[in-house]
């Protein structure tokens, strides 16, 4: 079976800037795929080329087996696109808004109202979109993208400007959408978001995809030590050093907590347990930020 999205050697330059510089990847059916990278990495450009909004300088893109460019009327009803929270008709209520989008696709008003319920906006249905909170507007925007029940959904930084609570609520919604069997492609500059939501992520920087794969596999691959920390004063740095064994661990004690970096956490943990020094225990594995650091040699800064 062919991939839902297949991108090969995509290039797009703006003047001297190679916004997308030889990008290739595939997205399979039902997958939750993330493009992760700092601002200016080329995520939006890549996504909009796949959506058929921009024409690539070179490279091939097929979406659901059809070429993405030029704009293909047959493709449009099968994809849903969320561009930006404020892409609404002025001065319409949330319900009028989604019903308008529904009718553009020939979808009855009833389905539109149901979709409003799905994203939890029934109560705000009569509210003008200008009056919605950031999170509510974002959810309406996603609802408008989903109203015609597309197989494939594109989301460009859906949690970009949201507060932490609104972000978590939106994550729940996105998981729910993915569970319903749709293929979802999302861009984000939040590492935690990609790690939490995506089946597979592509890490992008300066127009190139540095690495792609399941977040856990990417993290495992860099083979970074696990950081274990407990309260200061339970064991001395010396004792702790012995616990790390031969694992070339590194011990630091800042007077508040004592941290041990190790590639053999099992030994360290059981050692600490034997010394009855587990108070305030925290175990931190490597994250995608470490992956980014190891790939680029730079700290990750969104």
């Amino acid at each position, binding site marked *: 079976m062919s991939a839902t999205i297949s991108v090969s050697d995509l290039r797009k330059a703006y003047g001297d800037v190679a916004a997308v510089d030889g990008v290739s990847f595939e997205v399979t059916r039902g997958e939750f795929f993330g493009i992760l990278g700092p601002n200016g990495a080329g995520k939006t450009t890549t996504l909009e080329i796949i959506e058929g909004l921009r024409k690539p300088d070179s490279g091939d893109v097929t979406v659901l087996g059809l070429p993405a460019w030029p704009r293909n009327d047959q493709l449009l009803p099968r994809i849903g*696109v969320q*561009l930006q929270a404020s892409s*609404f*008709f002025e001065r319409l209520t949330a319900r009028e808004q989604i019903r*308008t989008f529904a009718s*553009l*696709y020939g979808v009855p008003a009833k389905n539109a109202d149901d979709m409003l319920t799905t994203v939890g906006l029934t109560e705000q249905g009569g509210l003008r979109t200008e009056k919605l909170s950031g999170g509510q507007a974002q959810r309406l925007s996603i609802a408008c993208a989903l109203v015609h029940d597309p197989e494939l959904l594109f989301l460009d930084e859906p949690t970009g400007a949201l507060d932490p609570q609104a972000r978590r609520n939106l994550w729940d919604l996105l998981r729910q959408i993915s569970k319903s069997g749709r293929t979802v492609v999302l861009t984000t500059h939040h590492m935690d978001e990609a790690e939490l939501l995506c089946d597979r992520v592509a890490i992008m920087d300066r127009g190139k995809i540095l690495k792609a794969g399941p977040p856990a596999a990417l993290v495992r691959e860099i083979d970074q030590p696990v950081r274990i920390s407990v309260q200061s004063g339970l064991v001395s740095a010396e004792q702790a050093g012995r616990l790390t064994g031969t694992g070339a661990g590194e011990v630091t004690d800042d007077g508040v907590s004592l941290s041990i970096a190790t590639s053999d956490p099992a030994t360290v943990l059981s050692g600490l347990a034997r010394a009855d020094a587990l108070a305030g225990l925290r175990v931190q594995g490597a994250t995608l930020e470490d992956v980014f650091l190891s790939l680029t040699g730079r700290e990750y800064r969104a």
Partner: protein
Amino acid sequence: MRGGGFSSLSRAMFLGFVRDRAALIFSILLPVLFLLFFGSIYKNTSAPKLNLVAVGRVELLAQARQADPGLSRILTISHGRSVAAALADVRKGTDDGAVLQHGNTLVLRFSIADPTKAGLVNSVLGSIVQDANQAASGQPARFTLAASQVEDKSLKAIQYFTPGLLGWALASGAAFGAAITLVSWRENKLLRRLRLAPVGIGSIVGARIGIAVAIGLIQMAVFLAIATLPYFGLQLTSAWWMAIPLVVCGILAFMSIGLLVGAIAKTQQAATAITNLIILPMAFLGGAFIPLDFAPNWVKEASYVMPLRYLVTGMQDVMARGEGPASALPAIGILLGFTLLVGAIAVRMFRWDDI
């Protein structure tokens, strides 16, 4: 699906318009206020009324009023207590003339502060005396004077500026509406969102045209409803209905200007400024604010390159001057030609987004 797109887009645009207080104020309320204002100021310019104050018994006036009831339409007569008080009133301008009768002499005292009224009061009273003389002589009049205004009798001020102000309201409504919608939809990416929906550009533009025409016809209906109130006294001439196709073509012409501005401008502020820069001078030079008949020559000449001129004079011809329906055809042709030209440029300059 195309049809659904057209009607739901039209609905969305219409709701967006009627809920936009600023748009309602600028396209309907403000022009109507202008109409009310000018309508009240110039209400009497074509038939000024004369106020006379009579001191004592003025037999001649009483007879004249009996003989010609129409006289009371232009003459209001009050009674003064004394000659001195009456003269003071005339000096102040509260009355246009003081009259008293000494035997067979009708005495008129008037002020030349308002020369028009001074002339009028002299000639009205002169003709009353003449009529009385004639009646006394018992002879039928040998010579009569048939005098009438050179302007069409019905062409009162309201007849000039109803089409003028309406033309301005239509022009700015259509141009601003198109320019602002285009820019704001591009700014908030709605245009691109629509591009990814299965609706054609034809449905989007068609809906916008439909809404602009609907708004224009509402403006027209409001204007005519107010101007034809007896208080303002607009009298539509027989071929006034020809103003409807004229208005539609005018809206197309000004929409094309708006679309061109919307294609060029990057922000709503820029779009507003550019549209103002185009529409305002046109309102002054195209006969909307200053009737071209009274305008200096250079304005008349400049007006020929302004599409607003054709909309305004075309409406005046069929709505107020009593010309036939065919008189609007040249204006319609010019407006449509203008639409095609500017519309074609706008299409070439059109951008879906800022990229």
